[in-house]
């Protein structure tokens, strides 16, 4: 270790990149990934122009253009947009239900000792159940329609969000709860005017963290049984080894997830200015 540090004038932990340097470093992994893919694709296509496994970047762009703009021959609809709206509807439905449930349960568990005794071990156990193992049960109980997919997302992310929110409510200094009581606040007012506003920022960051799992559950459910949706399409075209379509969809899903995450972050900053007042 000392050998490395002899070469540098300072400890490595004290080197901070300049702003342009930081931007370059942030871009570097993306560039490297693209270059590596292009080279690999080129090698395979040179050996066999019919190769479908690693389509050239230009092919992916062409496919993407077609998928986004050209309607399907039979249905006269653009499938990618249909898939997107169907998937986003399920995703937002599931996440919205989970967020509402976890908020109500979390505040109740955090503030009411009776609710804590009643629910906290139950939710701790429930959060250990692997949600995908329940998928067959959900399909049997709720059918193959929308409900089972939304329920899978809800079952998958609600326990974790509830536990975290309850923890945050319990972390509100007791002084504040007592203070509110000395100002005459009822339990409801403590929940609504003291606890709720202080855990809402946490709810948003919870949603951001849970979106990854929510996508996972959504795509899994769509892959198993569906007739429209981003996950359904990917698993459908897999049969034809249509890597260009799969890669377009994967990039599109990644982009959607990124935009949603960014929007939630922006919302959190705007809606909760008091969070950053001290910084």
């Amino acid at each position, binding site marked *: 270790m000392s050998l490395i540090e002899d070469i540098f004038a300072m400890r490595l932990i004290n080197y901070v990149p300049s702003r342009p340097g930081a931007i370059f470093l942030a871009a570097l992994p993306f560039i490297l990934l693209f270059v590596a893919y292009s080279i690999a694709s080129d090698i395979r296509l040179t050996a066999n122009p019919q190769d479908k496994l690693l389509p050239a970047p230009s092919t992916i762009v062409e496919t993407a253009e077609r998928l986004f703009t050209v309607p399907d021959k039979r249905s006269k609809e653009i499938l990618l947009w249909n898939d997107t709206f169907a998937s986003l509807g399920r995703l937002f439905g599931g996440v919205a239900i989970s967020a509402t449930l976890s908020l109500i349960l979390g505040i109740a568990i955090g503030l009411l000792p009776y609710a804590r005794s009643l629910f906290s071990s139950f939710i701790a156990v429930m959060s250990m159940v692997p949600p995908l193992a329940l998928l067959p049960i959900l399909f049997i109980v709720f059918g193959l329609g929308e409900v089972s997919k939304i329920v899978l997302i809800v079952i998958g992310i609600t326990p974790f969000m509830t536990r975290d929110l309850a923890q945050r409510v319990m972390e509100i*200094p007791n*002084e*504040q709860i*007592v*203070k*509110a*009581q*000395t*100002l*005459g*606040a*009822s339990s*409801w*007012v403590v929940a*609504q*005017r*003291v606890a709720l*506003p*202080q855990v809402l920022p946490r709810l948003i960051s919870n949603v951001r963290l849970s979106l990854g799992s929510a996508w996972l559950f959504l795509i899994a459910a769509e892959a198993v049984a569906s007739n429209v949706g981003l996950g359904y399409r990917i698993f459908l075209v897999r049969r034809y080894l249509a890597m260009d379509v799969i890669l377009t969809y994967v990039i599109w899903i990644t982009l959607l997830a990124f935009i949603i995450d960014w929007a939630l972050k922006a919302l959190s900053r705007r809606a*909760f*200015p*008091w969070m950053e*007042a*001290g910084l």
Partner: protein
Amino acid sequence: MSFVGVTNVWQRYGDRSILERVNVSVDEGEFVSIVGASGCGKSTFLRMLLAEESPYKGDISIEGGDTAVEPNRERGVVFQKYSVFPHLSVRENLIAAEAFQNPLGTLRGSARKNAETRADAMLERIGLNHVLHQFPASLSGGMQQRLAIGQAMTAKPRILLLDEPFGALDPGTRLQMHDFLLELREETNMTVFMVTHDLDEAFKLGDRVLVFDKPRWDPQDPGLFGATITYDFDARDKGIPYQDILAAYPSLASA
């Protein structure tokens, strides 16, 4: 009859005694400082005055009322920190002191307008009118405590409880806060209980200084006996109560 009456109060956690046989009676408008070593039960005593916890035995009454089982608007409180709501602006913190007693915790229409007017007057009084739209986290420690005191006073409690209110402040700010509190007291004649570690502060601000300590001590079982009030000083006139007695009773001089 006394304003605040504490009668034969005991407190214990499990089989550990904290307080035993605490008796004290306080008149309306008295400022009572409470001092003692760490772990002597003075904060426990304050929490019982606050009704955050109930005594194991005995009664605590305000104006002859029953021992309270939970905090209410009769008791205002300022803690060392976390006494104001971080998600509400300075002004909203004061309005909350009036709004929280409503079923939904909010005020509407003319009630809201009146509360805003009173909040602005209080902000003027506590010298925070220039930061009314800021959030507590952006205020200095002294300003936060002034806001906390203003918030507690806005609810017009019968007694005001201060739990080491200036413990986290630097010495200069602490002196400013003393002046602020003395002025405020002069105006309102509020009954105040203040727990502090600072003896100078206790005697400077208080009319009375209560000292908590353990009169009995079992070296084999330190938790066996609890603490009680071992001294009850008259702290008026700089702690020398009779130095101005001739001014009050001139007839004594001629005798």
